[in-house]
């Protein structure tokens, strides 16, 4: 059974149509990479699935576990097991890393999750979630926090941005953990070495999925396409 099914959704902001009839499905335990150039709506798709305020499809349906979730609020979707790690995670004043990782469940061992994200717990658990953390550190803590939630579906919006090349393996490790835990992952990325570990990949352009299939095939197509800003003429791949 499909865990997440996006059925022909359209989404418009004022006069600009972001999506027109976009469809996508994700199986339980599937890592699904989403590729696309800047401004093609990858993050918007993430917000639509997560249910951020103001992000409701104009038409079409989003189904989770066979039930429509279009009109569920963000925290109601989180209760179903959907979560997200933002591309640029926010900082919090007065909240320690330990408190952040145990917000929802005080019983868990936060150290375990920091280690999964490549951080030494002794150095981080008592630090504050404020601007004393670098962008890369904050990003890893966000990854650790979403693993700790034990979600059924996690959206990772460019988990590799702001992370140095040598630390990509930590990101891959976290994705593997999700997979081992049976979680599905929507993985938004620009990096081929991240995308190819997915089970499936799709490329978004001009408001639609223009290419879907094996990650190697989709990344190859993504790299070789000619159009920079697609008008729908070049992206007719089926």
């Amino acid at each position: 059974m499909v865990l997440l099914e996006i059925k022909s959704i359209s989404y418009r902001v004022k006069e600009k149509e972001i999506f027109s009839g976009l469809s996508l499905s994700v199986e339980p335990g599937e890592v699904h990479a989403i590729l696309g150039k800047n401004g093609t709506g990858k993050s918007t798709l993430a917000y639509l699935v997560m249910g951020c305020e103001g992000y409701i499809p104009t038409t079409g349906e989003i189904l989770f576990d066979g039930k429509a979730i279009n009109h569920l609020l963000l925290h109601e979707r989180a209760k179903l097991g959907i979560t997200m790690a933002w591309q640029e995670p926010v900082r919090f004043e007065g909240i320690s890393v330990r408190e952040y990782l145990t917000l929802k469940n005080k019983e868990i061992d936060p150290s375990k999750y920091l280690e999964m994200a490549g951080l030494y717990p002794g150095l981080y658990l008592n630090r504050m979630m404020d601007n004393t953390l670098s962008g890369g550190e904050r990003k890893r803590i966000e990854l650790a926090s979403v693993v700790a939630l034990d979600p059924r579906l996690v959206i990772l919006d460019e988990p590799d941005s702001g992370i140095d090349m040598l630390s990509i393996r930590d990101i891959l490790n976290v994705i593997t953990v999700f997979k081992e835990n049976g979680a599905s992952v929507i993985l938004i990325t620009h990096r081929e070495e991240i995308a190819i570990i997915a089970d499936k990949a799709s490329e978004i352009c001009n408001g639609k999925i223009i290419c879907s299939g094996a990650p190697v095939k989709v990344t190859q197509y993504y790299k070789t396409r000619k159009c920079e800003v697609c008008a729908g003429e070049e992206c007719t791949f089926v």
Partner: protein
Amino acid sequence: MSELDELLKSFGEAGGDQSILANTAFAHLAASGHKILSRRAVKGIELDTVESDKGISATVRLLKGTRLLNPVHLCFGVLHRSGIQEINMRVNFEKDSQASFIAHCIFPKAEKVKHIMDAVIHIGENATMRYSEIHYHGIYGGIEVYPKARIIIGKNGRYFTDFLLINGLVGKLMIDYGVEVGENGVAELIARVFGHATDNILIKDKVALNGVNSKGLIKTRVAIENNAQAQVIGVTEGNARGARGHVDCMEIVKDNAIAKAIPLVKVSNSLAKVTHEAAIGSVDKKQLDTLMAHGLAPEEAVDVIVRGILK
């Protein structure tokens, strides 16, 4: 029950450690209204007090070179429903001295209470004072609090203050602090207040960086809800070469509450620099979304954010 026991009981109920006043290693001064209930000095500190119908006068002298390991506890309060407490403090930290003061201000039943604190503090050369003032107010909101202080910091002197009022209704709060910072001196003023109902909050901090390479920070964190009002005025003057100042104000507003922030920076020396930032508004939406994506309900998420900034 004696008045001191009653004060201690309220202090304990507010989360304080009641045994502190019995501990001979700690200097303290405890007063209810205009009556001094208990006091103790330790080696290196002189504590003179005078009580009258008009108020309490306290003179504190930290002797040259004294470094107190344990904080000095000031325990002030009005335990009755109505009353007035006026305290005039003169504090002198002599050269090379160092100590922390913690003031516990307790007004559990206040329906018509006024608490006035007027302090003049001299921080001598190389001396350091840390002063925390923690208020425990009741649920009635019938209290007016007027903390006023003038602080003069000498060469290499350092003064840190942290005002905390997040328990109970604020009532009316009118903070008025003014600091003059000498050469290489440091002043850090932090205030954290949570206002509810019809609370009325005014926080006015002024730091004059008069000495070469002096430094100042005014940091204010206010959360208000219901029909509360808050105004924060942070004034910093850079009057000397190498002076560095910063004003940082954040106010979170809920319901029908109204917040204002007036950061005022003035530089009279071309080699001084003063910066400011102010953020007023509802809870940050991205913070809220992030916490809700972690499974928190909206009201839980707001609570976590507000408690965080007031921590």
